[in-house]
């Protein structure tokens, strides 16, 4: 990781008495792909708009490259945004759209022409100069919006759910495209999405947000494998979250059965939350399992089967490529390092706040 490029310090923002962001602190490194991930209303778009300069925080500072830009107008900032609804200028053709920022900066015509060509090539839309935005598909419009932003050579590109309106296949293609663009341009991307899969696929660094607080930040692997609380575990992928008791270091009692685990330092006989990913559960013959149960539901998902297993009074979600018919008695086995232990939140409010530093 490089040096800090953008730092948000103690940012608070509320609309009509409704708190959207509360004392948010965040550092964004140079040349990283950072994703703000969370459900709608978690404050991720507001955070992006504060960085872009479209909203002023009630409190706190935005530091960009060592300078305080909290009060700087959006047109003076060295960053560009790709908006959710594309926001192309419908009465201008594609070339005019891409040239907009460069013309305002009074760049010479030949430079602008080269830049348009370069940007269209970069987004795989060579030869589209004379087309009108209305005649392009959603995915193409989005790519033009990206081209229009990057010709200005921003240090940071802000992307507000840019793939939200596209269909699944196109969205997946665009995810790889964006990742490639980021590598080629070597600039910082700050990406906002509510799609956890999108976040895992593209990011170097994920910031999970809920109710105006940062719940957890870290690499995609860390967020997925070691969620710090039930919200993150639940939001990122499917998971079994079970209230359990930590017997002692490296031993946890789940639904009356004792499982070996690798976590330490939670104390003895303390209540904890356990997260087990559905694909980490191994179904074995009943006598071999740590816990015994019955398959109650079965769905074919393509890559794997999704099974519901009733065991110890809990309905376990299990993903496996091996089929167990409904009604089969099975044993549940989990490897120690696949059991993730989390502290139990003290209250509902705590659940949102607990992870803010």
């Amino acid at each position: 990781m490089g040096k800090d490029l953008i730092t948000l310090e103690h940012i608070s923002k509320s609309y009509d008495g409704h708190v959207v962001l509360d004392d948010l602190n965040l550092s964004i490194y140079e040349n990283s792909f950072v994703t703000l991930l969370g459900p709608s209303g978690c404050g991720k778009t507001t955070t992006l708009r504060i960085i872009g300069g479209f909203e002023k925080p009630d409190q706190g500072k935005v530091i960009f490259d060592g300078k305080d830009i909290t009060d700087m107008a959006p047109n003076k900032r060295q960053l560009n945004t790709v908006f959710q609804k594309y926001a192309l200028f419908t009465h201008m053709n594609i070339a005019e759209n891409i040239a907009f920022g460069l013309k305002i900066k009074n760049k010479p015509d030949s430079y602008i022409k080269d830049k348009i060509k370069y940007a269209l090539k970069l987004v795989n839309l060579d030869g589209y100069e004379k087309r009108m935005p209305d005649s392009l598909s959603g995915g193409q419009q989005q790519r033009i919006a990206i081209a229009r932003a990057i010709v200005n050579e921003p240090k940071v590109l802000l992307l507000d759910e840019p793939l939200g309106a596209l269909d699944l296949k196109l969205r997946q293609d665009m995810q790889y495209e964006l990742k490639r663009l980021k590598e080629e341009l070597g600039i910082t991307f700050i990406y906002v999405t509510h799609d956890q899969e999108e976040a895992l696929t593209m990011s170097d660094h994920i910031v999970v947000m809920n109710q105006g607080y940062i719940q957890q930040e870290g690499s995609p692997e860390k967020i997925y494998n070691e969620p710090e609380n039930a919200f993150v575990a639940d939001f990122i992928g499917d998971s079994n979250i079970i209230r359990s008791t930590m017997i002692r270091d490296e031993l946890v009692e789940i639904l009356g059965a004792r499982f070996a685990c690798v976590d330490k330092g939670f104390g003895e006989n303390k209540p904890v939350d356990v997260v087990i990913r559905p694909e980490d559960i191994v179904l074995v013959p009943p006598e071999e399992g740590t816990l015994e149960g019955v398959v109650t539901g079965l769905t074919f998902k393509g890559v794997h089967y999704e099974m519901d297993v009733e065991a110890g009074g809990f309905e376990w979600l299990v993903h496996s490529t091996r089929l167990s018919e409904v009604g089969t008695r099975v044993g549940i086995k989990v490897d120690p390092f696949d059991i993730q232990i989390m502290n139990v939140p003290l209250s509902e409010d705590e659940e949102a706040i607990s992870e803010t530093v």
Partner: protein
Amino acid sequence: MKKIIERLYLILILIFMYAPIVTLIVLSFNSSKSRARWGGFTLKWYTRLFSDTAVASALFNTLSIAILATIFSTIIGTITCIAMVGLSPKLRSLIMGVTNIPMINADIVTGISLMLLFRFLHIGSGFATILLAHITFNIPFVMLSVMPRIKSMNFYVYEAALDLGATPVVAFVKTILPDLVPGIVSGALMAFTMSLDDFIITYFTKGSGFETLSTLIYNEVKRGIQPEIYALSAIIFIVVLALLLIIYRAPNTKTKEK
């Protein structure tokens, strides 16, 4: 059978609506002064009309008032609409309701109240008072035609322009204004038409010695109607009709730059 009755009904309605105007236009080409007898085709009422200095000065007054009233009401109405973007929907519909009242209000009430106001404020009657009155009653028509454009607007384009380095003024001119142009044009045409054919409000606010086409016709009619007036009325009808046709076409044809 049902279709024939439907057609017949439509034709009847159109006859009822347009028979008087057709009569007027036909009579304007009648060389006989009589309203009952056809004396052959002539253009003499039109030539006499154009050589009439009273008509010429009334026409000049009407046009200059209509043009000025259109310019001012279009600017004021458009700015008001843009300013209303930042308001809450509740306040917005309240303001829209208040500005619509003069449109629903009987012209005679608007006319008399404006006359009383001008007297009270000692504003000399004539050109200025008519112009003020016309600007007043035209603003709601402009707003009515600009507001839907504002409502359907994608304001992200404005932010996108700011994001690309444009100052707020440049961003407005390059992104918001082009989208509003069709609404502004049809609003302006509407205002021009309204101003052109208004009689009642003009009559009450004009004072004495100042005539527009509509008040001139009214005075002439009191002295006994002349066929030139048919010709004049026919011309006014055709002009207003042409303007209305343009207004109804305007929002459909997209304005493309360059």
